[in-house]
């Protein structure tokens, strides 16, 4: 099959991703998308036209060598495919699963103009899973430089930065405030989208190969300050993310049954609340759940709610997404929205909450909403939602989960007033290098951009690692 003509390649249909049946999967937390097998992966890889000027690569935030890895894959040289991948992306098993491919690599794939884009993300996941199982491409350390670098936060930006610095031969210590490493990958994104074993395996592998030390239970700003780190280390990278939840300023927001998506997802994912009482942390969800927002976080909260309901209740339950714009503007990954719809989540578009109503017991009883319409585009280019007068109505609910975005947690900045920040609380850093206004300090990922994506955080970690390396050996 290696010598197909262009026409023949274009005739191959995009390979379908096998998934767990929606009726079954809403009763468990196991992975929804099951992954290609070797045969479908190779067939899908045959669809790539090996463009001379690959638009897909330009649209990938880290410039993954897409045609090269796909070529190696379809020639069954999996080891080479992994090597090609890892030149730009250390964590393909993760990105292949969670990147918003439709707005990045696949969104620009030339095949999309003809029929449907090459399933780059799924192929990437295939390669990533192959590497997890076989470890053909060991992380290697060059001779030790004797330099010490501290990395704050063990999310995708911190992990990537630490791994690259480790490969350059620097001695790296990661400081993480939670009890496990992984950031949003372990406390936010649920098991059914990104199994924890993938993240744990990548973290353990980096520690083993490169001798990276991870100090969990260390909150920078409290346990140690940024100043302590700059005193002790030759350089510091801040990858502390954007973990501070925003609450709506509407009445009833502090009632029992109203929580941030961060709280809900932390209870479910990090603390394994869905396995209560075997695990100690309880998590509560009612029979009628409203999730406010329509980003990835909202989809995850909604789909976790649905699964918990099926564990907790025999009678019919409902989960609503309440979103003030329309289907077109939904910021979540397409695949998640599609899966959420398949699973039976009810979408209330052009709807905005105005008040949460409590019952006699002080728990949520209903949410009052107003209908919206879309007006002129605002300064972000998105159409501004405007309330339509006299259209208020109530939806009966017993749980409300607020998923309206997050900002950087300011704890880390305690005692670091000189570190320049924007009025949104994000760190000011050079977009090319991540260098901050503080000597010896770099930053990247959500703490600089505000809530963004896994791959952009990884890209930032990588760029900072290069710059830190230049600084340390320069």
């Amino acid at each position, binding site marked *: 099959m290696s010598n197909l003509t262009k026409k023949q390649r274009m005739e191959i249909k995009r390979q379908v991703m096998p998934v767990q049946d929606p009726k079954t999967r809403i009763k468990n937390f196991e992975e929804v998308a099951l992954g290609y097998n070797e045969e479908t992966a190779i067939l899908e890889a045959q669809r790539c036209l090996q463009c001379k000027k690959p638009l897909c690569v330009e649209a990938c935030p880290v410039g993954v060598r897409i045609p090269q890895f796909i070529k190696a894959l379809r020639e069954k040289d999996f080891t080479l495919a992994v090597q090609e991948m890892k030149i730009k992306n250390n964590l393909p098993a993760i990105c292949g699963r969670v990147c918003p491919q439709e707005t990045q690599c696949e969104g620009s794939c030339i095949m999309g103009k003809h029929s449907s884009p090459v399933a780059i993300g799924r192929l990437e996941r295939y390669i990533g899973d192959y590497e997890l199982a076989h470890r053909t491409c060991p992380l290697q350390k060059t001779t030790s430089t004797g330099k010490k670098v501290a990395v704050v936060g063990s999310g995708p930006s911190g992990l990537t930065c630490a791994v690259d610095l480790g490969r350059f031969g620097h001695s790296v210590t990661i400081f993480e405030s939670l009890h496990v490493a992984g950031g949003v990958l372990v406390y936010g994104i649920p098991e059914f989208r990104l199994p924890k074993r993938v993240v744990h395996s990548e973290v353990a592998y980096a520690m083993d190969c490169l001798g990276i030390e991870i100090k969990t239970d260390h909150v920078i700003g409290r346990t140690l300050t940024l100043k302590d780190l700059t005193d002790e280390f030759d350089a510091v990278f801040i990858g502390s993310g954007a973990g501070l939840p925003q609450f709506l300023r509407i009445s009833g927001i502090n009632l029992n049954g109203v929580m941030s998506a961060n709280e809900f997802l932390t209870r479910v994912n990090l603390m394994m609340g869905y396995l209560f009482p075997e*695990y100690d942390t309880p998590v509560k969800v009612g029979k009628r759940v409203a999730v406010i927002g329509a980003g990835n976080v909202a989809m995850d909260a909604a789909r976790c709610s649905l699964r918990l309901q099926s564990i907790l209740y025999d009678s019919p339950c409902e989960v609503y997404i309440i979103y003030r714009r329309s289907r077109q503007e939904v910021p979540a990954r397409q695949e998640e929205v599609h899966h959420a719809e398949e699973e039976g989540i009810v979408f209330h578009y052009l709807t905005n909450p105005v008040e949460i109503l409590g019952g006699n017991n002080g728990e949520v009883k209903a949410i009052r909403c107003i209908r919206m319409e879309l007006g002129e585009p605002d300064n972000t280019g998105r159409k501004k939602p405007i309330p339509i007068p006299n259209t208020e109505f109530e939806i009966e609910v017993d749980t409300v989960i607020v998923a309206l975005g997050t900002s950087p947690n300011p704890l880390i900045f305690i005692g670091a007033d000189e570190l320049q920040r924007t009025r949104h609380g994000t760190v000011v850093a050079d977009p090319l290098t991540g260098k901050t206004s503080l000597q010896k300090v770099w930053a990247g990922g959500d703490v600089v951009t505000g809530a963004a994506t896994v791959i952009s955080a990884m890209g930032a970690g990588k760029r900072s690692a290069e710059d830190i390396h230049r600084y340390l050996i320069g």
Partner: protein
Amino acid sequence: MKGYRILHKEAISDVTKLIVVEAPHVARNAKAGQFVIIRIDEKGERIPLTIADYDKDEGSITMIFQEVGKTTTQLGSLKVGDIILNITGPLGHPSEIQNYGSVICVGGGVGIAPIYPIARALKEAGNHVISIIGARTRSLIFWEEKLKAVSDELVVCTDDGSYGRKCLVTEPLKEILSDTKRTISRVWAIGPAIMMKFVASTTEPFKIPTIVSLNTIMIDGTGMCGGCRVSLKEGAKFVCVDGPEFDAHTIDWELLLRRLSYYRDEETYSLQRYKHKCNLDNL
């Protein structure tokens, strides 16, 4: 092995235990009024406990806790040499200690433990310290001598009259505040939420600044979940990062009490299941 070793353990009353744990990273910067989040093992929940004392040289911290549910009961069953898997801290703001003049420190139940270092620091700062401690019954009163040593006056009360005065802590508090010969500048109160609520309503008519240390339900303790939020007159605050100490007169106590009981059914179930398992293991 990963984790933090228990160096010393004492039973302070039937249900109140003291443990000293090796945690140099916390001891290094700890101050009175701060707390830690602990997780006993892989399946454990994260719970907050006040740093009752610390020893920077030994690299250890002391915690005193009451066995009220699954996690604290399990913690109470650990022995010297055992490991607590995770301890994060120090968290929260330290207490603000100054020379205010005459001050009252109220400690109820297990709240006697965290009120002690505050009373001690206030005394060292030159205040006239009046301490009032109380509990349901005699066996739950502890550290009377320690508090006496750092207080100019000490009142002990029990709900059932088995020791000291038979009254709630708010009674002597009100008497002292009503005494026109005295000027009290500030009151601290730590104990069950319901006690703190009544202390707040006792001091409010006298317009005396009153500081309470809130014990909301927490998960991360770093401002990430908002589960610990409390409703104040000026808006919602996160107890773990903005507190744990707040002006008692600005708190919406009803909401606080309701939020504390939100997981009661699950907590009760978890404790029963744990005790049942322990009984089986002991057969």
